[in-house]
């Protein structure tokens, strides 16, 4: 009986000491604080699209023409300040814009000539040069924005969230009305990644995010399209990118 009690005492003391030691082990503090972000659920991929009104191919980008101050024809980017609207602004003034109206940043075609549907146009690895300019140049040429180049790409995994996203898709109905999903669109700028898709990678359309819409002339291939994407998180949290592309569609 006495032996049993002693054993119990030893067991209890051992358990308490074990707790003390485990607490101490947890206390070795400074190292181990990586901020790995987990990837979220993978969206289903729609890699090819040929049937129906889906336009699979290259949306060739016509460079923005801003001889008159604002961009009056062609492709451009604008950014709405937090709390503003796409219709009324206020828009950020980009002093590095080549346009007279600095709220417009004219876009010029990249090495692929424009935006491809049914296929990604991924950013290079690494996506930045030594001075943190984005260097992806397939869709459009990098644009100086606040002295640092921003570069657009479409990637199977959204660089901001790590979420798997489908390739861009754009469809036209019989009247030439365009709709689409460009959630894979992303911008690299200043060492940071900004999802600039619509909808966002999780399918949502927060704030000023508005899905792609536009017009398409099946005879000439001429198109005009626009989408807006609110930045979620980071230094421009709440700001909204306005993407306006014009040009001709070339079926692949």
């Amino acid at each position, binding site marked *: 009986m006495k032996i049993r009690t002693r054993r119990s005492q030893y067991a209890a003391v051992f358990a308490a000491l074990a707790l003390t030691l485990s607490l101490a082990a947890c206390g070795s503090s*400074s190292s181990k*604080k990586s901020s790995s972000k987990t990837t979220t659920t993978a969206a289903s991929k729609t890699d090819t699209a040929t049937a129906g009104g889906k336009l699979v191919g290259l949306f060739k980008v016509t460079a923005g023409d801003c001889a008159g101050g604002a961009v009056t024809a062609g492709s451009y980017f604008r950014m709405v300040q937090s709390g503003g609207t796409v219709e009324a602004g206020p828009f950020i003034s980009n002093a590095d814009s080549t346009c007279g109206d600095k709220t417009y940043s004219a876009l010029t075609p990249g090495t692929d000539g424009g935006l491809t549907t049914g296929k990604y146009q991924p950013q290079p690895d690494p996506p930045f040069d030594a001075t943190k300019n984005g260097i992806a140049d397939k869709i459009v040429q990098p644009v100086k924005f606040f002295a640092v180049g921003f570069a657009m790409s479409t990637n199977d995994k959204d660089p901001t969230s790590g979420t798997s996203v489908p390739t861009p898709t754009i469809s036209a109905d019989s009247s030439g009305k365009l709709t689409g999903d460009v959630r894979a669109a992303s911008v690299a700028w200043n060492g940071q990644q900004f999802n600039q898709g619509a909808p966002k990678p999780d399918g949502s359309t927060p704030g000023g995010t508005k899905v792609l819409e536009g017009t398409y002339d099946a005879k000439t291939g001429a198109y005009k399209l626009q989408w807006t994407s609110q930045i979620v998180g980071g230094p421009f949290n709440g700001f909204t990118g306005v993407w306006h592309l014009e040009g001709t569609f070339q079926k692949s």
Partner: protein
Amino acid sequence: MENRASGARRWTFVVALIVGLGLAAAPVAFQMFTRAPKGGDMIDAFRPYMTNAKITRFQRDMRNIDAAMREARAQMLPALSDKAQLDRAAVDSQFASYAALDKQWKAINADMSDMLRTMHRDLGDFAAVDALPPFKLFPWFFVLPGLMVAGFAGWGLVRSRRRDAPAARSTRAPAVALIVLGLAIVAAPVMFQMFTRAPKGGHMINDFRPLMTTTKVQRIQGYFLVIGAGEGTIRNQMLPVLVKNGSTPAGLAAQLPALTRFSHDWPSTSNQMAPMIGAMSDNVDNYLAVDAMPPFPLFPWFFVVPGLLVAACGVIARRGSRAEPVQV
């Protein structure tokens, strides 16, 4: 005599059981399971910026911009007036982004410098908090010992009610366990240096309160845009006007060294500044979660007080078992 002793023993186990369950439940009451990991995320996000090198670099950048803005007023504006006949009103209307920066710079500089001073002052506090065990483990430092205390207390309680064995002997083991466990809980904050680190954490949380609001972060976003747009206007529009009117780029670089340095350094400043603003913006909610937790300086006492209570219960139970005559 025996009944009184065993009754007192039972009460000590009941008290220890309540303390243990209270300790285990504390993280739920304080929503630590959701709040503490957010604190950890915030510490992770700020770690790259809470260094002496980074903050002194930002402070140097602010001083350089200040020098550039002074030089712009003292040298560039008179040069624009002399060479291009652009008076102040014309400058303000043609170069609105520069005018906005010039107008707002004093306030921007004061606010940003104040923020950087606060951050610099809190470097030691941040390091102390960063050296604490990972935030996400915090709730478990309450739950695990709490459950163990409750377990030992429950064990003692059950044993003290047994009629088939001498109660005194059978409760000795749980009583000793409670003493050891109680002392371990008391020792934990000492081991983690919580008495020095936790108040520093509290100090930092207080200092950051005015900085970590949506309004403040949006204001700093705005500063970034004003500075960036102003710099771009000087570089892309105003200095070219001087070149067009007879100055050479090399001559301007020599004449306007602070402005030249501003434009040269701005991309690099922007590289550093933009992610820091991003970290601030992304962590406003995390900060609020941490701020909603009990005050940091109290944390060591959340261990010491229950630990002492548990140890005292163990001692009382142990004494009772020793005093009680053993029945044969």
